[in-house]
């Protein structure tokens, strides 16, 4: 159970910041609401989550990022969106606001936008350095973002990202929205994780409204979450191999992914399973033939996938590209609280399903694979092992799927809720505050990518520029989830 928020003084805020800086606590999120800033933190030993709120004076609060770098971009986003300033912050440049909006601080005290100051990228020192600017429009079918490389010959000396191009203002659209509409918006924060977002949003709403979700719906949610996970992992494994110019794996994994999506369509009427999870339960039941179709799928994947794993493992030219490429040091993974395969390939064993044991995972058996190498190869292997675990989970869910209702009625009232759900790329955090009419007063959505993007900057250092697409794909951070 996640306890309600605690209001703290400046002293309490600073103490928590210190505990983040010493590694005693992990930062899960940092967001604003009016004049309040809140942080969620995790004690990894006990899996206890705490949420602290500090009310700004004159729109200022003590910087967390000054002591704990993972907070820097979050603070920059708060400044750009809400106009609240982090005192002592090491980086005062805007974030998400690229200078194209008509309003400044759109979620705080709105003001007409000023002409933006030129954006200075961080410097890199040394001889014979050159810069390569990439994006926002990239060469492939990929989301937009800007990458500024400083290189010495082929070797990357520094990468700096500039993101925000797909910022749609989702948290702004949420304010005042009905629960229905807000759930749809949450499910479109990052399309590849639509199930996880809808799941997390629904959980937060159900905590706020104190609703018990029918067991049948709870199991269906996990079923969809695992299907989403394997579909994405197949896509990623194929795409990573493709970026290492091994197209055979790409083609084969593409077939597996398509098979999963056809099954999800047959079971839930939508290939990506959008809008199926709603506050209170699920909007529709699994199709009558769903269980049978799913069992066939699991059997089929079990037949084909081992040969592909073998192919991956025994192709020297592929391993040559993925092994020791793009290493994320375990220390960084821990410091940033990197979730998903990025964290678990670098020794951080956190998985929200395991740590928080939210229903129905408290009743299901599964392993959380962890590796230490932290390279592209390790991130591929975590995905491979997770596919196997998800297949087993799907079987367990089908075996014990309880009968019953699909949705519980909701009664509008004021309340708050925080949820953490394990998406395929890592934990998604949703914090929600509802007003008396049951509408959204404030909702914050934090993608796993927030704590992974900065690690990509570190992972590429010393690698060659040509390996960047491979490293990037092995992270597969969400631009939309981050920019929101």
């Amino acid at each position, binding site marked *: 159970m996640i306890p309600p928020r605690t209001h703290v003084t400046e002293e309490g805020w600073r103490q928590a910041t210190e505990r983040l800086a010493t590694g005693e606590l992990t930062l899960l999120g940092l967001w604003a609401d009016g004049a309040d800033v809140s942080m969620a933190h995790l004690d990894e030993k006990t899996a206890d989550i705490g949420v602290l709120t500090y009310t700004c004076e004159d729109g200022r609060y003590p910087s967390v990022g000054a002591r704990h770098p993972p907070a820097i971009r979050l603070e920059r986003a708060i400044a750009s969106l809400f106009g609240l300033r982090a005192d002592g912050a090491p980086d005062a440049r805007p974030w998400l606001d690229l200078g194209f909006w008509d309003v400044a601080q759109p979620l705080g005290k709105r003001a007409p936008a000023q002409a933006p100051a030129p954006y200075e990228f961080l410097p890199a020192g040394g001889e014979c350095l050159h810069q390569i600017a990439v994006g926002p429009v990239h060469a492939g079918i990929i989301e937009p973002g800007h990458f500024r490389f400083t290189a010495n010959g082929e070797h990357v000396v520094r990468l700096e990202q500039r993101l925000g191009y797909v910022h*749609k*203002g989702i948290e702004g659209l949420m304010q005042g929205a009905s629960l229905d509409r807000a759930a749809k918006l949450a499910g479109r924060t990052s399309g590849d994780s639509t199930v996880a977002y809808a799941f997390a949003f629904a959980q937060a709403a159900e905590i706020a409204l104190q609703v018990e979700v029918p067991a049948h719906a709870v199991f269906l949610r996990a079923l969809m979450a695992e299907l989403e996970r394997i579909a994405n992992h197949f896509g990623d494994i194929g795409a990573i191999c493709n970026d290492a110019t091994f197209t055979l794996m790409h083609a084969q994994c593409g077939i597996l992914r398509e098979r999963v999506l056809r099954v999800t369509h047959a079971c839930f009427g939508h290939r990506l399973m959008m809008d199926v999870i709603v506050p209170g339960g699920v909007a529709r039941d699994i199709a009558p033939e769903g269980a049978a179709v799913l069992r066939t799928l699991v059997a089929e994947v079990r037949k084909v996938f081992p040969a592909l794993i073998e192919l991956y493992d025994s192709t020297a030219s592929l391993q040559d590209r993925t092994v020791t490429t793009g290493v994320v040091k375990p220390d960084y993974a821990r410091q940033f609280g990197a979730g998903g395969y990025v964290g678990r390939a670098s020794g951080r064993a956190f998985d929200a399903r395991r740590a928080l044991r939210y229903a129905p995972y408290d009743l299901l058996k599964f392993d959380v694979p962890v590796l230490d190498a932290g390279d592209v190869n390790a991130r591929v292997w975590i995905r491979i092992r997770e596919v196997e675990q998800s297949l087993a989970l799907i079987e367990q869910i089908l075996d014990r799927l309880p009968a019953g209702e699909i949705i519980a009625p909701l009664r509008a009232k004021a309340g708050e809720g925080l949820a953490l759900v394990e998406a395929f790329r890592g934990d998604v955090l949703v914090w929600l505050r509802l007003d008396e009419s049951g509408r959204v007063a404030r909702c914050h959505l934090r993608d796993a990518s927030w704590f992974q993007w900065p690690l990509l900057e570190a992972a590429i250092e010393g690698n060659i520029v040509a390996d960047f697409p491979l490293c990037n794909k092995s992270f597969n951070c969400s631009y939309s989830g981050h920019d929101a």
Partner: protein
Amino acid sequence: MRKTLLEGLTHGPLTEPAPAPDEAALKELAESVERAARARLGRSLSIRQVDAGSCNGCELEIHALANAFYDLERFGLRFVASPRHADVLMITGPVTKNMREALLRTYNATPDPKWVVAIGACAADGGIFAGSYAVEGGVKDVVPVDLHIRGCPPSPTDMLKGLLALLEQTSRKA
């Protein structure tokens, strides 16, 4: 690896028969393509995809177009890396304010004749994101659009139908 390759050769193809071109798409195109300066492209189009603010759901289904089931390339349709090589811009998402300029530049970098296909509910009119301080609107609010393929996201089959209709129009003699 040899085994996987051999299996690929001995099993029947997964690729499915082509769907019929979409009727509504043919109608929408009849108007726009007629007035375009028609260069002879043969039955082949190069597509440049641009994400102008999507949630990435549309991209997933665009990726699927290349898989063995839909096999876009058999129709002479292929994705290219640069707008300078493109005949078609396939644009997703509501156009965010932050992407407007980049989209315009991409459009201007694409040589004439060119066609713009707006993919998804968001690309049509901003969709669920319409009205946000950060969203400009649909694709047509920024660049002229020849064809809309709706859906959230549209299925690969729907996209294929629309693209086949486009192919039919562009390769028809003036």
